[in-house]
């Protein structure tokens, strides 16, 4: 085995560009393993884990680009590094050929783009707050996509934003939709009359895509970051966004998506909603949600219910939560999957790209499978055997791209779960839209097929249960992505909540299916 390194001093590249480069290099002849990373300490640790921390890589600084290839022969290594060089040169040539000289600082960009009104910041977290502060001081609204931003910085930035009447969306704001423009990870949805405020990126995507499927569109969607409604932060951006949506003539109904806020914060948010006088649907995902209606406010327990209640309110119809949109079909599928289940296989393994989707699945699985029997990395009560993993959590994404972009980590986890003989169900989300991977279903489908074959070879059936967060207008296409998963043997349900219930019906005690499917499977 030959290992070779190229070090490019002071050559910063963003994580998505580097992921694309590594992916290209992996297709080269004889390439066994490769890394294309900035030489930060975190990345050096990753390279060490992968056996790729060469002397040169060890000597790299945070602003140096490190490319390491492992091949069978020296000639293949040289060819791979030459290819890396030409890909990097081609990228630069493409930018220069477009006749643009890109500004190197925010200040210079502000001077060049007349009337600039929003800074979209997705820099590494440790540098993001300083740029966000500069942007606010120059009168720009900010969407702060970056995670790993300190709480103290968030509080200070939001104070500054509020003094100036600006939005500071984030940190860790994955999705927003302003004036018809999708920002960050965003699905293609029609414009319409529903305004949303969300402390959750994929939660917002699930609600917006289900609204789109029902023919409803979005006026504005403001992401506020997962901590905005915490006691320390105090919901300044949630309240600002509500005030703005309340005064927006295009917005007829308001949806709020998040986790349960601190009681004092909840009181402020609800008071603001009551004062606006517009109908509102509130989906604060938590263990103790009491669904119901109070004045203009409808409170719901799931993201799907948020969309369904919104559509019902808009059309003046009554609405009741449903476990499945097609109970008869669900009953049949559950019956088949339960019959194929191997002896001793009774465990759900949830492998999620979307953090809120993972959390929603956990909340649905806990009461169905036993509160103490669902573990994972989301603060579940139990240690297992059922497991729900948010693979986009900070501990998984240091030095690597988010699983909505790069399926490598999820593929590894699918392989691992398939080998565990007690696995009955793999529960998954697939998120489409701008910013997401080009073919997210295709990225995991071969691993799903292999997992099912592996289980079959060991005399047990493995159910793959999934939902696709997307619209027919998304670049990846909802129908094509669904078809790809189905071709790999997956049961694809219309929402994340339904997928979680389906998983529980297949893996759980018979009483679960009986309760949810009215007569059982």
């Amino acid at each position, binding site marked *: 085995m030959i290992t070779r390194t190229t070090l490019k001093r002071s050559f910063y590249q963003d994580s998505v560009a580097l992921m694309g480069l590594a992916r290209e290099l992996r297709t080269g002849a004889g390439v066994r393993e490769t890394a294309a990373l900035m030489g930060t300490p975190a990345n050096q640790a990753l390279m060490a884990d992968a056996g790729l921390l060469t002397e040169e890589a060890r000597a790299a600084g945070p602003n140096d680009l490190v490319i390491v290839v492992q091949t069978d022969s020296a000639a293949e290594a040289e060819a791979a590094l030459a290819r890396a060089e030409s890909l990097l040169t081609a990228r630069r040539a493409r930018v220069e050929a477009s006749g643009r000289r890109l500004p190197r600082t925010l200040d210079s*960009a502000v001077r060049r783009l007349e009337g600039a009104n929003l*800074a979209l910041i997705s820099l590494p977290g440790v540098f993001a707050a300083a740029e966000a502060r500069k942007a606010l001081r120059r009168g720009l609204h900010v969407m702060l996509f970056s995670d790993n931003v300190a709480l103290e910085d968030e509080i200070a930035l939001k104070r500054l934003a509020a003094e100036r009447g600006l939005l500071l969306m984030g940190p860790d704001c994955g999705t927003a939709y302003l004036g018809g423009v999708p920002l960050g990870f965003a699905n293609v949805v029609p414009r319409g009359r529903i305004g949303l405020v969300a402390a959750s990126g994929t939660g917002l995507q699930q609600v917006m895509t289900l609204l789109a499927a029902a023919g409803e569109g979005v006026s504005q969607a403001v992401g506020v970051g997962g901590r905005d409604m915490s006691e320390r932060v105090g919901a300044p951006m949630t309240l600002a966004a509500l005030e703005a949506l309340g005064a927006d003539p295009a917005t007829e109904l308001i949806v709020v998506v998040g986790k349960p806020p601190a009681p004092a914060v909840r009181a402020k948010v609800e008071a603001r909603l009551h004062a606006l006088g517009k109908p509102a649907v509130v989906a604060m995902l938590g263990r103790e949600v009491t669904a119901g209606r109070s004045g203009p406010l409808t409170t719901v327990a799931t993201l799907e219910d948020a969309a369904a209640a919104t559509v019902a309110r808009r059309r003046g119809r009554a609405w009741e939560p449903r476990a499945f949109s097609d109970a008869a079909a669900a009953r049949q599928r559950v019956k088949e999957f339960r019959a194929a289940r191997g002896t001793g296989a009774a465990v759900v393994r949830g492998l999620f790209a979307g953090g809120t989707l993972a959390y929603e699945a956990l909340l649905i699985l806990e009461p169905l499978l036993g509160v103490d029997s669902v573990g994972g990395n989301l603060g579940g009560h139990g240690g297992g055997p059922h497991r729900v993993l948010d693979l986009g959590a900070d501990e998984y994404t240091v030095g690597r791209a988010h699983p909505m972009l790069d399926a490598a980590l999820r593929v590894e986890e699918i392989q691992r779960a398939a080998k565990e003989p007690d696995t009955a169900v793999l529960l998954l989300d697939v998120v489409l839209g701008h910013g997401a991977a080009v073919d997210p279903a295709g990225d995991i489908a071969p691993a799903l097929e292999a997992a099912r074959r592996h289980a079959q070879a060991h005399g047990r059936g493995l159910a793959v249960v999934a939902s696709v967060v997307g619209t027919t207008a998304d670049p990846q296409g909802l129908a094509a992505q669904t078809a790809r998963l189905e071709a790999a043997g997956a049961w694809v349900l219309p929402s994340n909540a339904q997928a979680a219930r389906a998983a529980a019906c297949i893996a759980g005690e018979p009483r679960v299916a009986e309760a949810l499917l009215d007569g059982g499977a």
Partner: protein
Amino acid sequence: MADYRDLFRHLGGELRVINLGLESFAETLEGLGVPVLHVQWTPPAEGDPGRARLLSLLEDEDGA
């Protein structure tokens, strides 16, 4: 807190975006016809987060 009631009247006219970070976000916006300028950003202070923070505090003192 400032008044946010006119927020979408101001923002709704036209979004004009400065992009720092993932260049793919700028490419998406460009594809949608949204005015966007990508910044060829490099980490300050040779990528040392501690020194970068000090630098940004100094810049703040200079005022903006």
